[in-house]
């Protein structure tokens, strides 16, 4: 098993008389992208605030590279880069002035490093502009740049794709994967949209009402992304399975009258023709819901808050 980058041990938070976080325990490994997902009000932001040292823990501990955020705050937080909710920056300063401001707070950040993170998030052109004039997406990118400045071992991103256009989301997604794979950074990324982060996460933790409901491994890796889950109603089923195996090397599974298998989208028409030409009756063809999504909705219910 990979090394642990951050560990939550029975973390609890009571705000007023309300227990908002009810004892969270999980670990995030180096080089892993961990999705933290739950409906609005589940407690994602509260947990992240505690991980980043903005809120005191009511009980339990957060350990970052073995260092306790309670007793070893500075050493622990040195390893953390974060954006918490909207990445607000000083609106009257330029992007570069904002980054230099944060760079001065941690020893050893060079001008070159600042330029490096700027190009990582693709903000070169906007660096001399005041942040007050930035769009939400630009501010989000600057927020990520700020979080990366000091090469943290743990990167915590609260809804980082909020406000980004599809191209921006894809870029950030690719960059986050790269950080995890190449730099061995542990990334925690929160969202209430499974579809948005499913694609970049290794594991997903589901939180609801301040409790961890489940932690799921995401099996499909980025490389096989264009594989679709296909579901077909055919007869005879056995015959169809054999045909798929011999012609396309596909292992299909049968559930009652249905066939389920994975295939590239562009192969599907040819595949149907082959089946039809071999005397298989096809009643319907559709895309099967991802197994993870099924589980997620089962677990938390669609669009429920609280």
């Amino acid at each position, binding site marked *: 098993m990979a090394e642990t980058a951050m560990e939550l041990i029975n973390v609890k938070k009571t705000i007023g008389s309300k227990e908002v976080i009810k004892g969270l325990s999980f670990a995030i490994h180096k080089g892993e992208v961990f999705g933290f997902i739950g409906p609005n009000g589940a407690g994602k932001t509260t947990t992240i*605030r505690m991980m*980043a040292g*903005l*809120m005191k823990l009511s009980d339990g501990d957060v350990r970052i590279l073995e260092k306790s955020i309670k007793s070893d705050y500075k050493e622990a937080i*040195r390893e953390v880069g974060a954006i*918490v*909710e909207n990445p*607000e920056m000083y609106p009257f300063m330029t992007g570069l002035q904002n980054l230099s401001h944060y760079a*001065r707070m941690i020893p050893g950040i060079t001008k070159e490093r600042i330029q490096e993170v700027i190009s990582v998030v693709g903000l070169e052109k906007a660096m001399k502009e005041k942040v007050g004039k930035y769009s939400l997406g630009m501010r989000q990118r600057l927020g990520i740049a*700020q979080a990366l400045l000091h090469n943290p071992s743990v990167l915590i991103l609260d809804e980082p794709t909020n406000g980004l256009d599809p191209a921006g989301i894809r870029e950030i997604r690719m960059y986050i994967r790269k950080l995890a794979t190449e730099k061995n950074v542990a990334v925690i990324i929160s969202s209430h949209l499974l579809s948005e982060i499913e694609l970049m996460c290794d594991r997903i933790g589901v939180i609801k009402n301040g409790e961890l409901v489940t932690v799921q491994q995401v099996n499909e890796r980025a490389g096989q992304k264009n594989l679709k889950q296909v579901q077909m109603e055919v007869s005879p089923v056995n015959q169809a399975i054999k045909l798929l195996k011999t012609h396309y090397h596909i292992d299909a599974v049968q559930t009652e009258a249905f066939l389920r298998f994975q295939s590239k989208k562009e192969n599907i028409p040819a595949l149907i023709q082959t089946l039809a030409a071999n005397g298989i009756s096809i009643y319907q063809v559709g895309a099967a819901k991802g197994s993870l999504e099924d589980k997620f909705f089962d677990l938390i219910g669609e669009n429920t808050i609280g």
Partner: protein
Amino acid sequence: MGNFFNLIHNELTKIYIQKATWVMYTILAVVIIGAGIIVNTADDIKVSYGEDTWRAELQEENEQLTTEMEGEEFLESINSPLIERNNYYLENDIQPAGYGAWNFVMENSMLLSLVSLFTIIVAAGIVANEFRWGTIKLLLIRPISRTRILASKYISVLLFALFTLLFVLIWSWIIGAIFFGIEGWNPYTVLNKSSGVEYVSIISEIISDYGYQLVNLIMMATFAFMVSSVFRNSALAVGTSIFLMMAGKSIVAFFSDRAWAKYILFANTDLSQYTNGNEPLIEGMSLSFSITVLLVYFVLFLAASWGVFKQRDIAGH
């Protein structure tokens, strides 16, 4: 330690990059020029006295002042001190230096109330604004203790006050020099003090005039800083501080017959009440008593700011 200087660098950058700060400095610059113009047009300003003729010039001034007084009763309170001063020069055979840059700087010491106002505004915003902008989150997720961050902010407020004070001194001197010339490098003048007419060094007079007012400035800025970090509301901090700064004297007067009146902050902020010839505001007060009271308030203000800032959960808005 280098890290701490960086924090101060950051705070000063954030203060001086804002347009509001430059508006403050523009106001000061314009007010000082305006004061220069007003003093310049007042005809009783004499820039220099002749080496051989200064006695005659003073006599002439005195005669003029006396005739003015005969016509208008109310001028007596203005003119008779001037006559007294002139007589002091004549009796002690001192040639007056005339009006110049140093005199102008000394007379501008009341501008320190503007400096106080601006320092209060800066102190009121320095913590509260981070909350208002939402930038407090990104400020506090650094490997720096909250104590250091707060300390860097407080010291930056004091530095702002210092820089602004220096600006007032230097700009007043420059404007004074342009309008009236320079009356030497260690000029003396005769002043009517409560202890009588005295021949004093203008530079030491400038230091004590500005110095005594600095006590009030620092106390009110610290108060604003406390309100700012406890309530996270800069408008509230500015409002209460300015109200107290203006009403302070009246508050003391209102409660002056109570036994605890001497413990009110504003009974103690004016340390010049202990200089020779002056009466303390309330009987039984002494310089060391006032300094102790001031220190207690000062420590209380800072402890409250620190206690709240250190413990606060940074959540929502």
